[in-house]
């Protein structure tokens, strides 16, 4: 009983919790910035890779192979390893501008590389879920392959994959804390520092609360979109 009491006290100490808040909140701004930039980059890059992966014809085979190699590599490698490669590798390569970036930037690059691989698969599933007759209808009207993708296939695909996309973004948001192992000063690393100084753990709880408060609205919004889609599809079935 005594041990449990000690543990509870070490984590749930209101005084320490309040003290840690300003520091961790300041660090959380960095997480927010990383996720915002990475999410936008992921949305664009993953769509490009998904489209390349679906290109028709023998001529596009090397491009398709490249896209497959990319997704295989970055989906298979633990994100923390990618973070080490980027955060410690790039600065050592003396690549000029590329090697002089902040750790935050390397963190964003890591998140973008890894999550683009996941999201490429999400987009690809969406593109493949659009029925072939839509493509036939568009092409038979004289639209080119690119125009068909842009105006007919991709808009339908993106609408369908918004829930799984948002799901991946929840993962991305949390992984901003993991990529900070390369030395980014953000919510998790600041709560660690605070904990070291104070000898207790409420600072971790503060960081957890910030992440959860960010995730919950996104999760509810995803639920809402899924429910809305189901309602629409049921309405169409009758």
């Amino acid at each position, binding site marked *: 009983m005594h041990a449990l009491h000690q543990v509870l006290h070490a984590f749930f100490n209101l005084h320490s919790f309040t003290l840690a808040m300003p520091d961790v909140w300041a660090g959380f701004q960095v997480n927010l910035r990383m996720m915002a930039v990475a999410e936008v980059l992921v949305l664009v890059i993953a769509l490009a890779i998904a489209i390349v992966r679906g290109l028709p014809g023998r001529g596009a085979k090397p491009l398709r192979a490249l896209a497959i190699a990319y997704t295989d590599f970055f989906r298979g490698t633990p994100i923390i390893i990618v973070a080490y490669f980027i955060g410690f590798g790039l600065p050592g390569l003396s690549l000029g501008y590329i090697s002089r970036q902040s750790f935050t930037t390397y963190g964003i690059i890591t998140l973008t590389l890894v999550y683009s691989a996941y999201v490429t698969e999400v987009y690809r599933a969406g593109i493949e879920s659009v029925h072939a007759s839509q493509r036939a209808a568009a092409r038979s*009207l*004289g639209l080119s392959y690119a*125009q068909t993708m842009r105006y007919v296939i991709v808009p339908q695909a993106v609408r369908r994959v918004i829930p799984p996309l948002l799901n991946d973004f929840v993962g991305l948001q949390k992984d901003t804390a993991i990529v900070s192992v390369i030395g980014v000063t953000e919510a998790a690393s600041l709560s660690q520092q605070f904990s070291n100084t104070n000898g207790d753990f409420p600072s971790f709880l503060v960081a957890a609360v910030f992440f959860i408060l960010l995730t919950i609205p996104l999760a509810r919004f995803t639920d809402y979109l899924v429910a809305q889609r189901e309602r*629409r599809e049921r309405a169409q079935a009758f």
Partner: protein
Amino acid sequence: MSTNGNGPFVDVAGVSKWFGDLQVLDHVSLQVSEHGVVSLIGASGSGKSTLLRCLNLLERVEEGDITVDGVCVTREKIDVNALRKKIGIVFQAYNLFPHMTVLQNVMLAPRKARGVSRNEAESRARALLQRIGLEEKADEYPDRLSGGQQQRVAIVRALAMEPKLMLLDEITSALDPQLVSEVLALVRELADSGMTMILATHEMGFAREVSDKICFLDGGRILEEGPPEQIFTEPREPRTREFLSRVLAGGRMQ
């Protein structure tokens, strides 16, 4: 208007096609004159749809040649997009774009494939929708329309490209019986206006009424062709007779 002198507007010469080991078209030859209306009849799987899809190169032909408006379209280096702008096709399942309004469906191809300005494309699309009595549905999404309305929109979407040839692929087969007539009325109007058309259909009464020529397909071959009166009253081939009597027994000929 024809750019190919006195030849037929569509000339299919000895076309064969296989899906794997299955031969779906077997030396099919067919001529359609300008302003002509030809109906393809025959059981499901006889090759009607495949033949239509070969005409605008949605399917590749493995043997034989197809010439449309004086251009051999089965040659290696043909601009498929340019060809398809001249050929409208309407499908059994309508295939409207569900994420666009009716108006956007009709405007898309003229704007993007032909570079017509937004204003011009919109006014032409609205005029077309008015012609089929659906102008008040312009801003609705397709899932708010009945099947018959969707199919009529699909027809004007094809017409918006001002095609010289229309291919209609069993366009009433997915419709409830009471919605068939509104679609056929529009096709009849098109035939009367001189549109060159090839239709695959199970509506024998309609085929007899609008067509100049009926082709009976069986196992990927055109087994018999001729004017509607001959095909429907005195078919030469036993298979044609058999097919027609089966269809008549099913009450598909009014």
